[in-house]
């Protein structure tokens, strides 16, 4: 069966999706093995870096250290790869998996709280407009009045 040819619109949509993914995901610019720490250094698209102990990355645990010098980044930065061994590791998946282990639980909770507070929604917008018409958010009622 001859497959359907993709249209210009589908082609453009695929490029747009790729661009959106690149903005939304953590991507790598560079990767290298750091022998003195037995760790993998990943430089991300924000020019930040992570040093991840090799023991935390299951796919690389059995790889001889000599082969780790061949670690490479995919052209879009979405994965790191050892081509000879057919090992590909998603950068976004790797970092979202190891970050909770790198940070204390209170720090993670603070990040969630901060990001959650910045979130907007239709319900929040509707509520803010309704409060605006009343001259601002109504004061919170005190549970107990003292005479």
């Amino acid at each position, binding site marked *: *069966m001859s*497959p359907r040819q993709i249209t210009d619109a*589908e*082609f453009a949509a*695929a490029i747009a999706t790729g*661009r959106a*993914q690149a903005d939304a995901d953590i991507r790598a610019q560079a990767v290298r093995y750091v022998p003195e720490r037995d760790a993998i250094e990943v430089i991300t698209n924000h020019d930040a870096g992570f040093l991840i102990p090799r023991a935390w990355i299951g796919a690389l645990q059995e790889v001889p250290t000599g082969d780790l010098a061949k670690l490479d980044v*995919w*052209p879009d930065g*979405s994965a790191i790869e050892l081509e000879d061994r057919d090992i590909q590791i998603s950068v976004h998946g790797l970092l979202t998996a190891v970050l909770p282990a790198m940070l204390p639980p209170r720090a993670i909770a603070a990040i969630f709280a901060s990001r959650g507070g910045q979130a907007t929604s239709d319900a929040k917008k509707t509520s803010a407009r309704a409060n605006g018409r009343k001259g601002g958010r109504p004061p919170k009622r005190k549970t107990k009045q003292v005479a």
Partner: protein
Amino acid sequence: MFSRMITVRRMSHARHRGEEWIARVSFSYLSSGTELMSIEPVKNVPMRRVINRLLEEIQDRLPDCRSSWWMTRRTTCLANQWAMVRARGKVVVSDQVPGAQQIGDAQYEPTTERLHVTFRDGTTEEVRLRP
């Protein structure tokens, strides 16, 4: 009434090492079509005809793609999806509508290219993917 069709698809990556681009292409265990999902990076985007040739090649080698996915992931990603049994051996993924059944498990046999679908109500269906 039956509403829009859904295909539950697996996404694989094709990397062109010379021109340094990545195309993400999806395929399914219940339909023979392939679909282009995304291309990156923007600065290295190939010609459309190159992508069409890639999709054609993937379609030609769909049994290999299904087999590789099954061997490495051990899933068809069909569990918990809703599907209609149109006829004996003919299963189509659908919305949750009257007549649809929820898939509990779907195992793939690469050598025979057969899919064994077990629904939540205990009924089973065998789908032959080789034409």
